[in-house]
């Protein structure tokens, strides 16, 4: 399973990368961590004419926290984000999801931006980004624009990044007081992709749920917000009955894919179970964080 012939460019700055993207458009693939792209090349499932390796672009790394947002450079390695105290503090849902991504060696190379630009609907970070309404900062020949998560994920392995744009950073809102989170994952083995996963973020004020965000991994070709369940939860006090009903509403209309690891019905059943578990865990987490 050797990679096919491919041209290789290693730009040293974002501007150079954008020039290359503008030149090659759909014939180019951006090589970040490579943990998703290189297997596709090895299996000869992807055949780009050019690899644009952005590992040498220093300005794409680095994290900062300002004005209630945590901005993470696209080339920030997953293990760096995992070890970051400010991520643990300000974006606890991201901190909870990161250790579930593959294995240690994958996270040595894999990047926050790369995973989100690859947009595998069964991966952890797309669900987190969708739950938190993260913002995607892309830069192209005509400048920079910010794309909210709801518009970023367009389809299976497809984002709204234009072929001549580079994802340079992702912004996550800092968790408010009263936040409780949970990342639930049902996978065949430790470190595998989710068969179904759920990113949950709640805000409890005075014992009442004032904000509820639930985003599924593995239920569709993009991460999916369970808006019917979210609407139910806001304004209510946590209870088993409430969570059971939320689970029903979250999974009523879903039509998950079927594959070797589970039928559509199986995913639907498990999705409901992890809504119940995720809501309980997020509620407990909110109490612990106070």
């Amino acid at each position, binding site marked *: 399973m050797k990679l096919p012939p491919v041209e290789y460019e290693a730009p040293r700055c974002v501007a150079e990368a954008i020039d290359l993207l503008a030149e090659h458009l759909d014939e180019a693939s951006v090589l970040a961590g490579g943990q998703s792209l290189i297997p596709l090349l090895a299996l000869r499932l992807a055949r780009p004419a050019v690899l644009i390796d952005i590992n040498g672009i220093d300005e794409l790394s680095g994290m900062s926290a300002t004005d209630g947002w945590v901005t993470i450079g696209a080339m920030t390695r997953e293990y760096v984000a995992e070890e970051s105290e400010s991520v643990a503090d300000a974006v606890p849902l991201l901190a909870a999801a990161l250790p579930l991504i593959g294995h240690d060696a994958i996270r040595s190379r894999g990047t926050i931006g790369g995973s989100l630009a690859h947009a595998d609907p069964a991966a952890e970070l797309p669900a987190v980004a969708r739950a938190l309404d993260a913002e995607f900062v892309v830069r192209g020949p005509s400048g920079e624009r910010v794309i909210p998560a709801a518009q970023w994920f367009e389809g299976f392995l497809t984002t709204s990044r234009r072929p001549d744009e580079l994802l340079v950073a992702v912004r996550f809102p800092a968790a408010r007081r009263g936040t409780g989170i949970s990342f639930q994952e*049902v996978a065949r083995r430790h470190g595998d992709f989710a068969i179904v996963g759920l990113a949950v973020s709640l805000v409890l004020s005075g014992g009442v749920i004032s904000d509820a965000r639930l985003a599924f991994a593995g239920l569709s070709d993009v991460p999916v917000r369970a808006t019917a369940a979210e609407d139910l939860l806001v304004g209510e006090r946590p209870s088993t009955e409430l969570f059971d009903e939320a689970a029903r509403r979250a999974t009523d209309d879903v039509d998950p894919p079927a594959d070797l690891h589970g039928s559509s019905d199986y995913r639907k*059943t498990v999705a409901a*179970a992890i809504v119940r578990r995720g809501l309980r865990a997020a509620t407990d987490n909110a109490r612990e964080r106070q």
Partner: protein
Amino acid sequence: MTAIAAERYTGASIKRSEDPRILTGAGRYVDDIKLPGMLHAAFVRSPLAHAHVLSVDVSAARALPGVVAVLTGADLEAMTVRAPDPLLALFSTGGPTPEFSLLATDKVRFMGDPVAIVIAESRYLAEDGCELVEADYDDLPSVVNAAFALDPSSPPLFANLGDNIARPHSRNEFGDVAGTFAHADRVIDFHIDVHRHQNVPMEGRGCVASWDADLAAMTVYAATQSVHITRNGVAARLDIEPGQVRVLAGDIGGSFGLKIGASREELAVAAASRHLGRPVKWVEDRGENLTASGQAREESFDVRAAVSNDGDLLGLDVKMVIDTGAYPGMGTMVPDIMQAILPGPYKLEALGFESTAAITNKASYVAYRGPWASETFVRERVLDLIAKDLGLDPVEIRLRNVAARTDPPASMITGRPLVGVTTSEALERVAQIVDFPAFRRRQAQARAQGRYLGIGVATFIEAAPGPRGPGGGLGHESMRLRLTEDGIVALFTGQMPHGQSHQTTLAQIAADEFGVPFEQVRVVVGDSDVVPFGLTGGSRSATMTGGVALHGARQLKAKVLDFAAYLMEASAQDLLITDGNIWVRGDPASAIAVSEVARRAASGPFGADVDAKLEVEATYDGGEGGWSGGTHCAIVAVDAETGIVKVERYVAVEDCGALINPAVVEGQIRGGVAQGIGAVLLERSAYGEDGSFQSATFMDYLMPTTCDVPRIEIEHLETVPLDADVNFRGVGEGGMIVAPPTVVNAIEDALSPFGVRIYEQHLPPARILELIATAE
């Protein structure tokens, strides 16, 4: 290496002599071999399960810079001759053999069937070349399950067979089957399925073949379980003498039955090397290993059990269908082996057994660690199902049915004597180690909280090598032992270790018998010009090779002492060898180093009455042989909302005779159990309805990891010694044989509140939820 000051090596967990190179990256596996002028091969493989090959256009591939040659199936037919599979030639039971070519010529018969070989300067370029080969196919209906294969309307895969039956239906009866069933209190019917899964060694198949045109000699660097069987296979296909082929094997990255003889691809590589006059390397990648190397265990069973109301299993009548894939090999032999030991350690009075082997559009059925393992799965599942029907405890029903150990021993209804079998002791010991009543209390508490724990037990025996008796002999094992000029006791064996640690265990035995330190013994393997015939497989080596090492070392010692007696002007009876020195009993000052005696022997000549050739050719017939066996117990936790199963605790009580090296034995057991857990929870070689193979990567074929296999508690029973000297028995396959029913029995126990009954071996999470839903 520092000298180990063990008084007796045998029975101690001596550190492996293999490890210093393994741990430092100095092992030599086939893909590490580099020869001057070496080329690399890759195969064009069929994307279809069943099709006529209309044309294969290799012109674009041949024109690619870096591609040296492209050979089609027809090209290879012209440069080789038809020959039977060498493993089958050894063990064949007769029956029709489909004729097939090394690469597909007019037909492809499974997805992945090789159609052309591209030989290039690098594997990268060879794969590029493969993409340029244009093969044109005419799709045929696929035969994707045995049921359709046995239907006369299914398109025959092989024209010369006329149908898709690899081995005609046969039936045998042992005991009074009709009478036993007529008089039984109950007759219960079951249908049990075992799914297709596979060996998956971490190193795939591969070889480097190097033809020397001047010498008309072929050297093959192989990954194989027998250098001689590989040699014979290569010689036969290339139509040369076995003496013109030398097979060398270094370190091998696992096999579990896969790498025996020479595969079609390896033979094609050898032919290509001869054709080009240059060395050619092929090492399969993971996709090839999963898709094309071969698979195992896809068998289905219709079982009738004749049972008494008290839980006596009186008789079994079994109809088996085995799916042997497209190029039948080992699969046709497996039913016979199963039939012979299906009764296990139990007092079965009657057995009816019939089998059919079907040909389908799948990769070939190959030997996989305990190829007959489904007999234990079927028997141990049936016992649990009967126990549930009758309200009996799973340990009790087994104790009730185990044949008592008598003298002379009882025999299985199929003929083999159950001599030295310690199944009852194993069952009782498991019940002592695992506090069943305490578990039942914990289980009840957990159920009240909506958590589902289960406990399962299964027992097995394995002919490792099996008892001497009316079933016939045990074959024999050869070894050459030599005291080399520099004082090393060298053992030349046809064993071909690929994880079994023979270079350590055989040295332990020889060191003890001969009287030298462990470091003064060297086990020589892996050169067909040098070692006697042998095969590592069937869990035979502990007895057969351990035995020939023991007796051979004694014979060599006697010879050396005769020579030493001449040197020391003493009587051989008065001489001892301890710790590498030969000395006269009672006179420590007389000691001469073994190495010195060896040096002197090499510096002859001596008189005609002095034998200074310090070498013996030993053979061993297995002595009294014996059974290995054991009882395993698993505790599982099943999440009834997600279907995820965790094995919480696993206990193995084993009797594998005397232990040569306990750490090695335990490693074999644990590795086998891990494969059994993998089979039940994770591993399946999946085919679609059109015959497409769906498990071609490690994202789809899931291997058990550190988080799937718990600590496995192992206890060794004191064995019943049968032989004065050699009571080591094989342990390589047992774990994989008995772990699947152990785990499935536990899962069924966990799900008993739902009324679940399990008649299959593969239980991924989705299936667990289905079983719960359909039982309710």
